C-alpha cells in the first residue's frame, strides 16, 4: 500500500461553511420585519385611528401611565382587544407553522413536504364540523377549537399507526398514509356539510380549511405561545440529530442516531405544534412549505440556524399577510389562508422549478 500524500493544507481553520455574518444579518432583518409588521398591523385597519392614539392606548394598557379619557372606548377595543392580539396570534401561528414545516421536511426527508401532508387539516375540519353539525357543545365557545384539536390529533394518530407498520416510520409510508387519511377525511367533511345543508356550517368548514385569524383574543395567545416555546426548545435540543436525518437512516445510524426513535419524537412534536395552531387559526396553507424553504436558501439546512430563522420568517410573513387580508378588499375581509395560497402557489412552482434547474446543473 502506498499512502497518498495528504491534500494541500487548509489556509486556515474555517469556522463554518456558511458565513456566520449571513445568519446574523438574517436574524436582524427578520426581527426588523416582524417588529415593523406588528406595528403596521396595529396601526392599519378598517377604522382610522391616529398613530399617536394607538401608541398611547397600548402604553396605557401596559403601564397605566396615559389618560384613557383621551380616546373612545371603541377605539380602545379595536386597538387592544382586536388588532394587537390578532397581530400577535398571526406571529405565533406563522412561527409555529414554519417550524413544524421545517420539522416535517426532516421527518419525511422531503424538502417539498409541509405539515398538512400528514392529514391533519381535514382532521381538524371534521372535528369542528362534527361539533357544529351535532350541536354538542360541552365546553361552550371553546369547544369548536377543542374539537378541531382533537380531530387533528386523531388524524395524526391514524397516520402514525398506518405508517408504523414494520417497526419503522419510513418517510414514503408516512406520506402515503397522510394522503390516504386526507382523502378519507375530505370525503367525510363534504358529507357532513351536505348533510347539514346550512350556510353556517359551510362557512365554518371554510374557516377550518382556509384558516383565519379573526377569532384572535388575549385568552387565546397563552397556549400557542407555550406550545411554540416548548416544541422549539425540544427541536433545538435535537438539532444535530435532525441534520443527520436528512442524509438517510443508514448514515444517521452510523452517526449514533436512531432514526426511528427520533422520528417518533418528531412526529409527536409536529402533531402538538400543528394541532394547536390549526385549532386556533385553521389550515393556513403554504407557510409550512414556503417559509422553511426560504429559510434554507438564506442559511442552509443546518437546523441549529434553520429553525430560529424559519420561526422569525414565518411570524413576520403571516403578520404581513394578515394585514393584506384585512385591507386588500376593504371593507370585506379575506380568509388569511386564501392570501397565503395566492402568494404561496406561484412561489412553490418557482421553488420546484429552481430545484429542477439545480439538479440538472443548468
Amino acid at each position, binding site marked *: *500500500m*502506498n*499512502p*497518498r500524500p*495528504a*491534500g*494541500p*493544507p*487548509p489556509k486556515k*481553520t*474555517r*469556522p*463554518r*461553511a*456558511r458565513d456566520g455574518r449571513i445568519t446574523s444579518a438574517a436574524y436582524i432583518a427578520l426581527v426588523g420585519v416582524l417588529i415593523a409588521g406588528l406595528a403596521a398591523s396595529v396601526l392599519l385597519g378598517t377604522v382610522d385611528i391616529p398613530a399617536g392614539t394607538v401608541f398611547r392606548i397600548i402604553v396605557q394598557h401596559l403601564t397605566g401611565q396615559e389618560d384613557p379619557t383621551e380616546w373612545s372606548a371603541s377605539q380602545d377595543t379595536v386597538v387592544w382587544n382586536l388588532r394587537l392580539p390578532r397581530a400577535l396570534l398571526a406571529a405565533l401561528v406563522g412561527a409555529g407553522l414554519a417550524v413544524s414545516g421545517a420539522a416535517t*421536511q426532516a421527518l419525511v*426527508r*422531503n*424538502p417539498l413536504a409541509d405539515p398538512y401532508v400528514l392529514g391533519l387539516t381535514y382532521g381538524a375540519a371534521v372535528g369542528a364540523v362534527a361539533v357544529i353539525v351535532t350541536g354538542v357543545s360541552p365546553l361552550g365557545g371553546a369547544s369548536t377549537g377543542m374539537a378541531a384539536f382533537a380531530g387533528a390529533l386523531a388524524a395524526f394518530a391514524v397516520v402514525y399507526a398506518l405508517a408504523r407498520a*414494520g417497526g419503522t416510520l419510513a418517510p414514503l409510508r408516512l406520506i402515503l398514509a397522510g394522503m390516504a387519511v386526507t382523502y378519507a377525511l375530505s370525503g367525510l367533511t363534504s358529507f357532513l356539510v351536505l348533510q347539514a345543508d346550512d350556510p353556517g356550517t359551510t362557512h365554518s368548514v371554510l374557516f377550518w380549511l382556509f384558516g383565519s385569524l379573526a377569532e384572535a383574543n388575549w385568552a387565546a395567545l397563552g397556549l400557542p405561545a407555550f406550545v411554540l416555546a416548548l416544541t422549539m426548545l425540544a427541536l*433545538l*435540543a*435535537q438539532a*444535530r*440529530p435532525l*441534520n*443527520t436525518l*436528512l*442524509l*438517510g*437512516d*443508514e*448514515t444517521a*445510524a*452510523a*452517526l*449514533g*442516531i*436512531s432514526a426511528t426513535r427520533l422520528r417518533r419524537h418528531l412526529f409527536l412534536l409536529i402533531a402538538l405544534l400543528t394541532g394547536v395552531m390549526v385549532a386556533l387559526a385553521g389550515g393556513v396553507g403554504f407557510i409550512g412549505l414556503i417559509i422553511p424553504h426560504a429559510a*434554507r436558501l438564506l442559511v*442552509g*439546512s*443546518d437546523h441549529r440556524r434553520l429553525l430560529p430563522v424559519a420561526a422569525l420568517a414565518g411570524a413576520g410573513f403571516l403578520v404581513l399577510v394578515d394585514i393584506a387580508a384585512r385591507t386588500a378588499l376593504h371593507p370585506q375581509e379575506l380568509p388569511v389562508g386564501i392570501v397565503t395560497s395566492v402568494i404561496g402557489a406561484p412561489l412553490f412552482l418557482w421553488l420546484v422549478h429552481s430545484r429542477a434547474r*439545480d*439538479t440538472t*446543473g443548468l
Partner: protein
Amino acid sequence: MNVLTSLTLHDVHVAVAGTPIVNGVDLTAPSGTCVGVVGPNGSGKSTLLRAVYRHLPLSRGTITVGGEDLWRLTPRRAARLVAALPQETRSDFDVTAWEMAAMGRTPHKRPFAADTAEDNAVVAGALAHTGVAHLADRRYGTLSGGEKQRVLLARALAQQAPVLVLDEPTNHLDVRHQFELLDLVASTGTTVVAALHDLNLAAAYCDRLYVLAAGRVVAHGAPYDILTPRLVGEVFGVDAHVIPTPVTGTPHLILRARDRADSPTARLSD
C-alpha cells in the same frame, strides 16, 4: 498492535423483516488492519456491516470493539467507536461539503453544544487529509462521485472512531478514484472492515479476506490463501486464473464467464 481498537464479531445473526440474512458470522479485525468482506450479491455483506454500525439489530451474537459490546452501549457512544461510509447517502437537501463532514462530530456533541475550535480543527483536518479542503463551501450534491466519497470519508474521519466500516466504497468510481480512495483509507491507520465487489481491489488492499455465501463465512485468511480458482468458482460461479500482480506481488484474478456447455467441476481442477 493495540487490542483496544480491534473489532470482533462472534456468532452474529441478523434478520431483515423476519428473514435471516446473516447466519452466524465470526470475524476478527485486529487493530490497524484492513479486513475485506467479499461474496456474491445477496450473500449478506451489507447486512453484516449494517449491524456493525448499528443500523440493523442483531438477532443473536455479539460485536465488540476493544472488548466493549457495541450493542450494550448507547448509540452515541457506539458511534464514537465505529464510523461508517454506508452505501447510499441522500442529498435531497442542500448541504455543503463542510457541513457534511462536520456531521461526523455529531456523536461527540451534547444537546445545545456549540461547535468548538477543536471540532472545527478536526473537520478541517479531515477534509485536508482526504484532499477536499478546497471544496468545503461547495454543495455536496454538485460534487463528482470521487469528490463525494472523499467528503464522506472526511466525515467518517471527523468521527475519530478507531474502527471504520466501508460498504462498497468504490461503487460508481472510475479506476483511478477507486485506488485513490482505498489508498486514503489505508493511510488513516484505523481498523477497517470493507465490503468490496472487486476481488482484485480486495486482494490488493486487505490484509485478510472473509468470503461470505448465504450469510455464512465459507473461507477466511490472507488473500493469497483465499482467492483460489476453486473457491472463486464455487462461490462466484466464474472461472478464475490467479497471477501475481507485477511490482506489488498481491494476487490478481483473471476472471472469465463459465462456458455453460462445460461441466463446472471440470474447470475447477486448476
